[in-house]
């Protein structure tokens, strides 16, 4: 007879601290190497448009003539393909996941 097999576990956890965190007040611990927000070091960029061509979700728009590098943050899936193809290695994925937004707009560098 195994009645309520879980009683031990439930009793033990009654006296422990919760595993959840009070999120907005206590930021989430981010593992190093996590794929988050795409960051560009615009001074190194040569506007080769390779990242624009390769982006699977067409989140990037690189204007060679006007030297503009634009990103649609809501489309970016943080896959890191652009980081791999960048010849100047000026793109990085930071561990930070960015702040929430209420408007759809392109960020221009």
């Amino acid at each position, binding site marked *: 007879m195994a009645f309520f097999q879980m009683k031990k576990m439930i009793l033990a956890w009654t006296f422990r601290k919760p595993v959840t965190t009070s999120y907005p007040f206590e930021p989430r611990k981010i593992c190093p190497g996590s794929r988050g927000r795409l960051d560009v070091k615009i001074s190194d960029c040569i506007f080769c448009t390779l990242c624009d061509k390769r982006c699977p979700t*067409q989140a990037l*728009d690189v204007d060679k003539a006007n030297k503009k590098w*634009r990103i*649609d943050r809501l*489309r970016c899936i943080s896959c890191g393909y652009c980081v791999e193809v960048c010849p100047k290695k000026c793109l990085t994925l930071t561990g930070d996941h960015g702040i929430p937004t209420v408007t759809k707009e*392109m960020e221009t560098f």
Partner: protein
Amino acid sequence: MIEEQTIIGVMPEMLVAEARKLCEQGYRLVQICATRLGEELQMDYSFDLNRKFVNFRFLLPKTGGRVPSITGVYFCAFTYENEISDLFGVQVEGNALDFKGNFYTTAMKHPFIQDAVPASVPAPAKPGVQ
């Protein structure tokens, strides 16, 4: 090489009889799929027994193709047969559980044999354009 895959050409009219032979040997239906090759459809019926993969193949015209249903042998084929009739417009005769074109809800009929996306379907916006 991961595995040997045997592909056998089968006439559509012999399909049910051949499938029954495999069923009696204990084969399991793996999948049924259609592939568009220009003006033709390539039909694949795959079976497996202890990881021995056997595939039946035949060609159909792109539109108006008819195949006999194998639901009499493998009942589970009904999902695949409804799928090919909804997406490719292949007419399956004698399906035991026929959804009559209502298996998938699609914006257009038989989307997988259309050449290109018609103008009525809006194209995804370029970045920055809302």
